[in-house]
């Protein structure tokens, strides 16, 4: 995938973007050539998405200039970007759930007659044509809330192609794909560049950069560190440029013989509010002193499984036992008392009370028992002391020990949650997406804390969409597909290829 002597199609000169006093981009310059696949590498929070949002007109630079094909442009809003042939596929899909695929694709660019009445049939035909041209298989009349995540991504890609994009920006495109789907995605990108289009990919996944990109610009803490020719670099070199120090990729795990079963799930069946079978005869167990990792693509029932174990969903049939106590269909406050701690996938939504202080967040599950309250009155001193201990032990950084939790960074918020859960001393710790959106330092810390739980003879159920994390941390790996556990493997006896196949519903050897 080499590109030779092509012209500069995108030039961002000296871009600085400030939000108040926070500098997200500091004098960054980016050069992208026609027909190349250009990767933007950086940790979570480095400023890559912010930079591209300015190219797409969602933000305006505080200072700096943008040139397209040598011409200076002022991209004041997405309409300008779209008119200039720039399209962006966002990390979190911008899809209207109750609308159809076709409606989502044409939104903002609708075909109408003179009076503004929609010509839906024409839209569907156009979608079908585009879909065939690029091999992006979609059903134009399907409703977004019904289709798979992979198909949703194809809809997002069709959205930009529909508007004639020649420069395509992808923000973390492979986060939601199986290894096989990633291969397909790479093929699609190839087709685009063969067609003369230019592709910019924002990512923090080193392996994929090596597979798909020609050039890579590395950004760290808002500053451009360097530009490399991908064919001449290594994973380790990229990692070091990204983080600023040498990075070890795996966590130290002492050998451990697991003990008794703490969590026992047998033949679990759960239906959702629309009567769709989301958990389909699922069985697994997690033992003392082990980490069981659930691998799978987002949308195969992982979140629903956790909610069911926590008592937030009704069990249709089957059983869930904690320490041999049957907790099937018990109320969630009872279940939480039986020794389960949970780190939620969506920390903003389920993990924190945003306007409460750190100490008040740290007692969220034990506020009404001693020592934090007696006879219904809160014991402020005990709450404060508890906070002091946990802030120190979990390295929670904030402007003051009483700071409101919504002023903390994502990593520190996650540490508050983990500190709280672990200090409750649960027999079973459920960790869903524990390191999503965090920088490498926070990721290392959290991985250590999770492994420490396991080393202390606790049981850990880990759910993650990052295959590397699963392979790294788990003792056993359970692959989840369409609401079932397809296979349980020993992490030492398997590899990414085999798991990837199982994640996509295939059969392993």
């Amino acid at each position, binding site marked *: 995938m080499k590109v030779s002597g092509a012209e500069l199609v995108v030039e961002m000169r000296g871009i600085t973007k400030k939000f108040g006093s926070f500098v997200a981009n500091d004098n960054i310059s980016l050069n992208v050539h026609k027909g190349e696949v250009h990767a933007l590498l950086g940790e979570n929070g480095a400023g890559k998405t912010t930079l591209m949002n300015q190219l797409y007109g969602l933000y*305006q630079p505080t200072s700096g200039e943008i040139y397209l094909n040598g011409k200076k442009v002022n991209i004041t809003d997405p309409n300008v970007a779209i008119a200039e042939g720039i399209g962006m596929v*966002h990390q979190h899909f911008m899809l209207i759930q109750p609308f159809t695929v076709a409606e989502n694709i044409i939104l903002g660019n609708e075909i109408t007659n003179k009076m503004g009445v929609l010509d839906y049939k024409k839209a569907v035909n156009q979608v079908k044509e585009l879909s065939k041209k690029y091999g992006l298989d979609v059903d134009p009349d399907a409703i977004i809330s019904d289709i798979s995540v992979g198909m949703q991504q194809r809809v997002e890609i069709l959205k930009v192609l529909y508007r004639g994009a020649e420069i395509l920006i992808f923000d973390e495109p492979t986060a939601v794909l199986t290894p096989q789907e990633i291969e397909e995605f790479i093929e699609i990108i190839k087709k685009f560049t063969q067609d003369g289009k230019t592709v910019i990919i924002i990512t923090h996944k080193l392996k994929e950069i090596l597979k798909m990109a020609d050039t890579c610009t590395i950004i760290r803490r808002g500053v451009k560190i360097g530009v490399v020719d991908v064919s001449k670099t290594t994973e380790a070199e990229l990692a070091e440029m990204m983080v600023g120090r040498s990075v070890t990729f795996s966590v130290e795990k002492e050998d451990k013989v697991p003990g008794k079963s703490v969590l026992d799930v047998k033949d679990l069946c759960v239906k959702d509010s629309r009567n769709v079978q989301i958990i389909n005869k699922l069985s697994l167990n997690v033992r003392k002193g082990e980490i069981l990792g659930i691998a799978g693509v987002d949308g195969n029932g992982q979140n629903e499984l956790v909610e069911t174990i926590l008592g937030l969903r009704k069990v249709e049939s089957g059983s869930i036992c904690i320490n041999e106590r049957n907790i099937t269909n018990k109320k969630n406050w009872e279940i939480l008392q039986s020794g389960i701690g949970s780190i939620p996938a969506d920390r903003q939504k389920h993990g924190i009370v945003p306007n409460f202080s750190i100490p008040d967040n740290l007692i969220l599950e034990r506020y009404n028992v001693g020592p934090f309250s007696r006879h219904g009155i809160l014991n402020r001193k005990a709450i404060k002391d508890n906070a002091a201990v946990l802030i120190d032990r979990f390295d929670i950084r904030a402007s003051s020990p009483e700071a409101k939790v919504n002023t903390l960074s994502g990593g520190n918020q996650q540490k508050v949650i983990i500190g709280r859960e672990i200090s409750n001393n649960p027999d079973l710790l459920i960790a869903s997406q524990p390191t999503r959106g965090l920088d490498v330092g926070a990721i290392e810390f959290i991985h250590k804390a999770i492994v420490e739980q396991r080393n202390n003879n606790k049981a850990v159920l880990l759910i993650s969409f990052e295959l590397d994390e699963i392979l790294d941390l788990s003792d056993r790996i359970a692959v989840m597909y369409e609401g079932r556990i397809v296979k349980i493997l020993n992490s030492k006896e398997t590899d990414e290829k085999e798991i990837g196949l199982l994640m996509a519903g295939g059969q392993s050897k």
Partner: protein
Amino acid sequence: MDIFAFVLSTTFMYSAPLIFTALGGVLSEKGGVVNIGLEGMMYFGAFMGAAIAYYSGNPWIGFLAAGIGGGLLALLHAVACVTFKANNTISGLAINFIGPGFALFLSRIMFDGATYTLPLADKKMGMPLKGFFMKDSFLDNLLGSQCHTTFIAFLLVPVVWFILQKTRLGLRIRAIGEYPKAADTLGINVARIQYFVVIAGGVLAGFGGATLSIAVSSAFNPTIVTGQGFIALSAIVFGKWKPQGALVACLIFGFSTAIGIVLGWSSVQAVFPVPSQILAMLPFVISLVILVSFVGKSVAPSSVGIPYEKDN
């Protein structure tokens, strides 16, 4: 007179103001902005309609003025909610102070210190089908005494439906109500469309109020609206934020008012004495029963009530 025809025609008559207002609320909420202030806008429209009709001698001018009045109040709500990201509910409550406040204030000035306007008599809204059908036939009883406003209200239902479902504007409105950020990333001007739906909602609520004071009655008084703006709100929920559903709800409320009137006739009271206060409670009790029975089946637009903030 045939009771059946009377009940039906009274139902239509009392539903019309609710239909206007509910349609206005549907548009606004489909676009993502909650409008608790419909009551205040209706109130102001009721006053403007009667006052301007009286002084101009023409009910249509009064009707239009009412729409403008409701629209102006809605503009206030739009500025607060769309541009300044105010909490929709609080802003709506403020409108419920300001609307009646201005209405009564102006009333005292324009009508010599009184809080009610002078009777309209022949300046009242006309009835297009009066005398069209054979006298005292079923159709005459049903439609002959309906004002223009009733017909307009019913006609607006399919119009609003069409706009929302079949036009580009409607697609964008619905998209914004669900996921404004997605619409924004596609270059759609979220603020402009939200201003439009909120103001349109106010105009329609103003029409609804005017219908009360120049069609259903022939003057404005301080208790003429009395909760109907809120009943329109529950009609929206009942109708699952669809114009046709809201229509059904408004008809049910109109029906309960009609039944209340029939039960209040002395001839009926002699046989079936129901106290007038219990009758007055009927529409509200029915409202509650309806809301309870539509447990979990009524889904609001996902982003309704959440002010959209571009974070640049």
